[in-house]
């Protein structure tokens, strides 16, 4: 298991290889999720964003989610990477990888980490638009997705 919180960009191949190399049992299925900076919001085109975070807690919260995913879905490994600081449109912003024996566990693990990350990891987006920057409001659909995992029988 590993987490990274950094201003630096990341490589798909490097993260995939690292996830696979550190599996604690043979993995037959690997699911990755990558999030990119969108170039628009409800008000129109945006010009990138800035990500603030809570140093220390961000890493701990990500690691907790990754550990929960591994135990809840019997994963062979899981990892989460999040960038912070100033990002341009279409930049990579978040990466999650899950390795498992069974493919549905790998899908569920990655989906679980993304859904809960959006509610439990101290990161905040500020979008640049028309020269000004505005904090992003949380989406109700994200709250509902995270809540759904709490309701499912473990």
């Amino acid at each position, binding site marked *: 298991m590993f987490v990274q919180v950094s201003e630096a960009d990341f490589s798909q191949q490097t993260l995939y290889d690292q996830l696979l190399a550190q599996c604690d049992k043979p993995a037959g299925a690997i699911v990755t999720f990558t999030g990119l900076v969108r170039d628009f919001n409800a008000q129109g085109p945006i010009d990138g964003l800035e990500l603030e975070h*809570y140093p220390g807690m961000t890493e701990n919260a990500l690691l907790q989610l990754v550990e929960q995913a591994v135990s809840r879905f019997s994963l062979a490994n899981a990892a989460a990477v999040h960038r912070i600081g100033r990002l341009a449109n279409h930049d990579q912003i978040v990466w999650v990888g899950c390795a498992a024996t069974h493919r549905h566990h790998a899908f569920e693990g990655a989906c679980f980490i993304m859904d809960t990350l959006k509610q*439990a990891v101290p990161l*905040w987006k500020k979008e640049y638009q028309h020269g000004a920057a505005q904090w992003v409001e949380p989406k109700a659909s994200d709250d509902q997705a995270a809540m759904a995992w709490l309701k499912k029988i473990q």
Partner: protein
Amino acid sequence: MITVKTFAQVRELSGCGQLQVPFEAGLDVASLILRLQQQSPAWHDALEGTVLCAVNQTLCDSSALLNENDEVAFFPPVTGG
């Protein structure tokens, strides 16, 4: 002492990213919020509405009791991912 940290809108509205407040026995998150809000209109506004709280980097509700040297953080609902 208690270390108070703020992030995002809470940091901008309060005008203060970090400060120390004296610890006293029986202090909980709710009374810390009240004490900060009485300090200035800026702090009052910063801690109004939906504000999350973490004590020693774990999310807590406002009834959580504090201890000497705790780190208490206030911030808005998160928007990462």
